[in-house]
């Protein structure tokens, strides 16, 4: 057993951190939050690092590394609250194609995703209900899609979406639809974290292509499980940075003649943040291993990673603000970027409540078997 990243992966992390500290500053996140359009230069710079293709096999233009390497990058992207559609394109759209497309489609579509020239997203949710095989109302008639997806994240910059729909036999299928076509209406909507674009997307008999490899709700579940592991690393990266910000501020800020970090109320709060983060990290490591090597373990491992990462990020980001006091809830400081992202990621792949229910369901089934 070896339960840590390899030396090569640690090196990848250092590289990524140096790159992002230089190119993906809080100022860029704030700018995007304030209405600046998608930063294509930043995206291209990230693409030039090869990150989008990390886990894409070489035959499709990727680097052919492992998902564990992708987890390293995810953590660093989360650490700087990167305002880019990485999770939509490199986890969800890419993996949907890897898992559900046929050979021809993979060959046609993956190289563009790998080199960042094409951006994909994933259109699942159709409103307040937790998506499930039952709730999908968008239909695919064999050639076109009809229905409304809300919200679709990163629809403002994505070229296409992988859309979850129901075919004429009632089966759940995945389709690829270009987003830049007249039969697709994209209406931007405000969100708690506008550093990632949100939209209501309406397909009005929009031409689309079926992913011809696999169908069925279980494909979606596996896809989401994998994304949950990757996103949990983004969450841990953000939570860890929140903790560091809180510590640094508490060492510098003085109250009643002492560093506020010398008060146990702050010291113990930060210790609790650390505990929450390390708990999440341990679960996420197991998730990373299961994503790469243990498909039978993935449903449980992904749920545990996601549940604890949601909790850790929520706790760390809100208590980072609290530790900062008044300045913490202003735009002058960067605390809010993390709190926003924590709120977004907590619902992006389904709320912790849903995942807890799924976790217990899986454990019941395993126990019954």
């Amino acid at each position: 057993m070896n339960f840590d990243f390899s030396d090569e992966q640690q090196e990848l992390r250092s590289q990524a951190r140096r790159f992002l500290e230089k190119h993906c500053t809080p100022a860029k996140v704030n700018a995007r939050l304030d209405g600046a359009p998608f930063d294509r230069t930043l995206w291209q710079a990230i693409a030039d690092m090869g990150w989008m293709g990390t886990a894409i096999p070489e035959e499709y233009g990727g680097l052919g590394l492992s998902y564990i390497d992708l987890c390293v990058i995810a953590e660093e992207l989360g650490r700087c609250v990167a305002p880019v559609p990485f999770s939509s394109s490199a986890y969800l759209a890419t993996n949907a194609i890897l898992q559900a497309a046929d050979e021809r489609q993979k060959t046609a579509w993956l190289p563009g995703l790998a080199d960042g020239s094409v951006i994909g997203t994933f259109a699942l949710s159709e409103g307040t209900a937790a998506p499930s095989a039952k709730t999908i109302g968008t239909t695919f008639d064999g050639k076109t899609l009809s229905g409304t997806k809300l919200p679709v994240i990163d629809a403002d910059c994505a070229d296409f979406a992988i859309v979850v729909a129901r075919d004429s036999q009632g089966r759940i299928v995945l389709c690829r639809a270009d987003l830049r076509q007249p039969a697709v209406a994209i209406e931007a909507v405000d969100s708690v974290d506008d550093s990632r674009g949100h939209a209501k997307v309406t397909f009005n008999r929009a031409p689309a292509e079926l992913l011809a490899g696999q169908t069925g709700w279980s494909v979606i579940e596996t896809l989401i499980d994998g994304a949950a592991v990757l996103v949990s690393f983004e969450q841990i990266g953000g939570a860890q940075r929140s903790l560091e910000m809180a510590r640094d501020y508490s060492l510098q800020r003085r109250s009643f003649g002492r560093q506020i970090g010398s008060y146990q109320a702050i010291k113990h709060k930060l210790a609790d943040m650390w505990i929450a983060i390390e708990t999440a990290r341990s679960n996420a490591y197991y998730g990373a291993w299961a994503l790469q090597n243990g498909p039978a373990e993935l449903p449980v491992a992904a749920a545990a990673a996601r549940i604890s990462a949601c909790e850790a990020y929520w706790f760390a980001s809100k208590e980072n603000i609290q530790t900062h006091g008044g300045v913490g809830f202003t735009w002058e400081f960067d605390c809010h970027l993390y709190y926003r992202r924590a709120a977004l990621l907590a619902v992006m792949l389904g709320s912790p409540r849903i995942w807890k229910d799924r976790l217990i369901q899986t454990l019941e089934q395993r126990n019954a078997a």
Partner: protein
Amino acid sequence: MDFSDTPEEAAFRAEVRAFLEANAEPKSETRTVYPVSYGSLDMLPLAREWQRKKAEAGLVGLSWPKQYGGRALPQIYQVIFDQEQSNYLVPHSVFDIGLGMCIPTMMTFATEEQKTRFVGPAVRGEEIWCQLFSEPAAGSDVAALQTRSVKDGDDWVINGQKIWTSGAHFSDWGVLVTRSDPSLPKHKGLTFFFLNMKSPGITIKPIRQISDSSNFNEVFFTDVRIPDAQRLGAVGDGWKVAVATLMNERLAVGESREPNFADLFRLCRQLELEDGPALRNALIRDKLADWYVQQQGMRFTRFRTMTALSRGQTPGPESSMLKIVNANKRQAIARFGSELLEMTGSLVDPGLSPLKAVMQQALLDAPGTRIGGGTEEILRTVIAERVLGMPAEIRVDKDIPFKDLAKQ
């Protein structure tokens, strides 16, 4: 122990209900939030108009002496008014700080002439007041303030910076605490004033909050002159006046802001989950019950405070407890309510989310609620020391001249 209205209280409640029915729109299942938000420019005239109506009906300053237009009623009457008003859609009050903190301070420390001049306009909503205490390096530790006041003839000259001044940008008057003698220890050399917020030398800069609203401001003073006649309390007694002002704040803590139990209950009544109506879900019922119990606990704690007041006792640190519990509850409800909406739980667009996205909006606003008016860490220390008699924090800055402290 009698929870019922006395005949006098019942009569007053009827009076308030009649007034509200005649002058405001009741909340409904779909409309629970006043349509014009705090930050917007439209809000101010609407708020003034509503204040004027209340004042004309004799429903402002209920507990004040009659000579200042009050009705000399026990504090419980204000609670009755607030209870009834909370069923109606009314503008966000911009008068709470003035009427709750500044004017009571004036009543204690100003001259008769000044009181006569200022109470009426404040009551009728013609003049708005703000409070200038906090500074960038003096948050929880208010007495660490550095804004200087220097006597010059019959005036004082003010230089420095205040922060977190709620409503400074639309206020007419403010109360201000300054350091007049840095050679004394930090609580000693302070002096307290009221001043015209339109005085030359004042620059006001709004502070943008996470929720994108800007209730608060930074206020910069450059050679601002205040006549000595506007000093409240003796020179060097500013801390005492400031403490009295803050004491009045304790009374001003009201019911918790939305979303509260009722909002979440309402949301859950509307929401269908994967396995049936949200209200049938055992987890949701458990959470709802916890928050109901907390909410009622805080409500009745306020009533207990009112009873103590009516017996002539001074308000204790109970409001610290209300703040801690209500602020955390609010943040927790906002998170829980948002997450119940699954992926749409990240949308703040009022048109696309149940209850006009009140949960998501509150999520962004809630971190401030836990900090403004005293962080919960400070408030727990207050409870531990003042209620439970625990040892005070080790203080390293107590008896040292302020000017030497600043150098540390």
